[in-house]
């Protein structure tokens, strides 16, 4: 039997309330209320609690733990993901994966760990007036995150899915590297995306949040922050709605949290939506604009030998060969990685009408997948998307395509297909509504030159939502300063992936941990003065 730190903590008297069970309104008083318990919220909570502050954590999703993580997609997607893992952009062109549970995205992410790339930090300094975030200034914070979460280079040989990327890169003389991962005692199972069943993944769920709860923080799950309370230029707290057991409809119970400081950590999309609902001051109308996705293109390949893409650490090899083609602000660069392929995720991305779909699924054990994270937000023709509110107050991201993006999508698909053939694929299908299984690189290349890279034609995904509440010193282009403090409302801070002024250019969790550790320290200082 695997020890379950959440079950143990609850048994030891943690203050954790599942609001779906509440029948009466509540009013709470605290030093700091944190909205969201993902990468930013978790890290921030631990720092504040260690400094002796009273913290209330508000989380829209449920509190689940290893005993619930049965490695089934049919459980994980509706329970642990935003909109059952079916969140889409307004035109339905991009499928967005975000966590919605205690631990947020860190409970379901694939454990790949990178510091913010130096060209990204330099770009922010140069173009977005970000201060105190150069490589040297950030290093101690990344080191801290590495130590806290056991991040190290993965010593186990890659599974065949990742080995194909390495082999293809070697064949073509492209660079590749071995992934760093935030795991301790990982059994190489490959189910990170459904919640780690043995607590090997060092998510916020099993690290910082238990530490915060051990030191007396209170956690409200199934609780949605609906709007901020503020008066004049001071934020006073947050009004929340309890959600029903499925997390779909509000129950009518309201929880009001009054606090000396409010930290927004609902993630990109979530945090800007809360600001928009609250009507907080935003003289330059920045909230929700410049939301980035690392739009992901993907290709599946059929190999004669077994690949078994559902087994083994999901991501262990990557290639940055095409990440910075002409520096940070040249044509769109992309990072190459590999996705795990379990039945549901595969079935929904393999897009062949009729019996061809099942024929493809029946070969799942022989399918290899590759993905390209396209680095958006660095070029004027890549301004990202805009979070708007639906009439019921829920967020909807409008993410228009530009020719700059289309060019990147096309190049990235070609790069992946070429690598897959070089690795020995018999057939490759770049994910596009009108693509076919191609038997040679030449045939695929010709097709990819012609296929339209338009919305709902090229298949796009995102597991990295960033931006929408950018940081920087200039209030005309940033909503919070370089330490995450709101430019216009006192005692309001933002610490999550929404603060980045561009996308990151690599998987973002460590960027969020590092930035949050730095900024939470600034918050502690401000609370003490």
């Amino acid at each position, binding site marked *: *039997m*695997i020890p*379950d730190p959440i079950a143990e903590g609850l048994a030891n008297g943690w203050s954790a309330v599942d609001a779906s069970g509440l029948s009466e309104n509540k009013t709470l008083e605290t030093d700091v209320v944190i909205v969201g318990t993902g990468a930013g919220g978790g890290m921030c909570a631990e720092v504040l609690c260690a400094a002796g502050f009273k913290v209330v954590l508000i989380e829209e999703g449920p509190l689940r733990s*290893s*005993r*619930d*993580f*049965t*490695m*089934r*997609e*049919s459980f994980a*997607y*509706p329970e642990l993901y935003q*909109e*059952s893992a*079916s969140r889409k952009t307004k*035109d*339905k062109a991009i499928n967005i994966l975000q966590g919605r549970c205690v631990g947020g995205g860190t409970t379901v992410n694939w454990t790949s760990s990178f510091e913010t790339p130096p060209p990204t930090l330099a770009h922010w300094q140069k173009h977005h007036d970000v201060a105190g975030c150069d490589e040297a200034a950030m290093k101690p914070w990344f080191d801290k995150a590495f130590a806290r979460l056991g991040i190290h280079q993965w010593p186990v040989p890659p599974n065949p899915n990742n080995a194909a990327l390495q082999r293809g890169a070697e064949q073509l003389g492209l660079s590749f590297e071995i992934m760093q991962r935030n795991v301790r005692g990982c059994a190489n*199972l490959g*189910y990170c995306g459904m919640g780690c*069943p*043995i607590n090997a993944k060092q998510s916020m769920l099993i690290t910082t949040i238990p530490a915060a709860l051990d030191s007396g923080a209170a956690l409200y799950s199934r609780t949605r922050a609906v709007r901020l309370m503020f008066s004049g230029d001071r934020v006073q707290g947050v009004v929340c709605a309890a959600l029903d057991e*499925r*997390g*779909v*409809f509000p129950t009518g119970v309201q929880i009001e949290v009054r606090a000396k400081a409010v930290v927004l950590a609902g993630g990109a999309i979530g945090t800007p939506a809360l600001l928009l609902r609250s009507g907080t001051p935003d003289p330059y109308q920045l909230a929700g604009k410049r939301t980035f996705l690392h739009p992901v293109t993907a290709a599946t390949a059929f190999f004669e030998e*077994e690949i078994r893409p*559902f087994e083994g650490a999901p991501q262990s090899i990557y290639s940055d060969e095409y990440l910075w083609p002409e520096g940070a602000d040249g044509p769109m660069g992309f990072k190459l990685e590999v996705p795990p392929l*379990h*039945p*549901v995720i*595969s*079935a*929904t991305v393999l*897009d062949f*009408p*009729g*019996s061809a*779909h*099942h*024929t493809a*699924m*029946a*070969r*799942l*054990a*022989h399918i290899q997948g590759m993905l390209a994270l396209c680095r958006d937000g660095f070029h004027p023709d890549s301004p990202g998307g805009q979070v708007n509110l*639906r009439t*019921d107050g*829920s967020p*909807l991201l409008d993410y228009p395509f530009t020719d700059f993006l289309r060019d990147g999508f096309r190049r990235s698909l070609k790069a992946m297909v070429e690598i897959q053939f070089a690795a020995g694929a018999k057939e490759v299908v770049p994910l596009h*509504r*009108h693509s076919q299984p191609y038997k040679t690189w030449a045939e695929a290349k010709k097709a990819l030159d012609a296929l339209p890279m338009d*919305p*709902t034609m090229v298949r796009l995904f995102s597991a990295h939502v960033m931006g929408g509440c950018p940081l920087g010193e200039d209030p005309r282009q940033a909503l919070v300063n370089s330490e995450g403090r709101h430019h216009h409302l006192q005692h309001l801070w933002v610490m999550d992936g929404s603060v980045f002024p561009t996308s990151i250019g690599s998987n973002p969790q460590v960027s969020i941990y590092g930035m949050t550790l730095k900024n939470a320290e600034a918050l502690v200082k401000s609370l003490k003065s």
Partner: protein
Amino acid sequence: MQRRTFLKAGLLGGTALACAGWLSHDTFWGKGTHLAAKGDHRYDFLTEADHAVVSALAPAVLAGSEAAGNPKLTEEVVHAVDQTIAAFQPSVQAELRQLFTLMTLAPTRVLVCGLWRDWPAVTPDDADAMLRGWHASRTALLRSAYDGLQQLITAAWYGNPRSWPALGYAGPPPFHNNGEVTE
């Protein structure tokens, strides 16, 4: 079902979908306002009329799989689709309500789906032809309606352990994380 009907459906589909928002609020049509119920399967979103739609589409979407020719498995798929939708947020449920209204009302069914017969009489070939039309449609709304239905139905089946043996997937490793072996 003829190619011309698709083209027409493609052109008119957008307008029809836009109107369905209003139609779905109108109880005058009276159709399918009762939630489906099949044996022990309680339904939370799909009405009897919607149930017939998904039951007709599933064998076409899952053609070649064990679920396609097996009414009991098809029913499991339809029920899983219902439970998935019931977990979607209200605004997405409302969008799907519009789509199902559009597909179940006779005039829009003929116009947009190109189906003269009502859903219980729709054959897998009819459903397949309709789906291929939507998949390749020039109307973005129909393409995304296709994607939505395809994803709901395939997720429902391939999330079901019964589908796994045919994929060469043995399921998650047996594991003692909750005091029980999961398989």
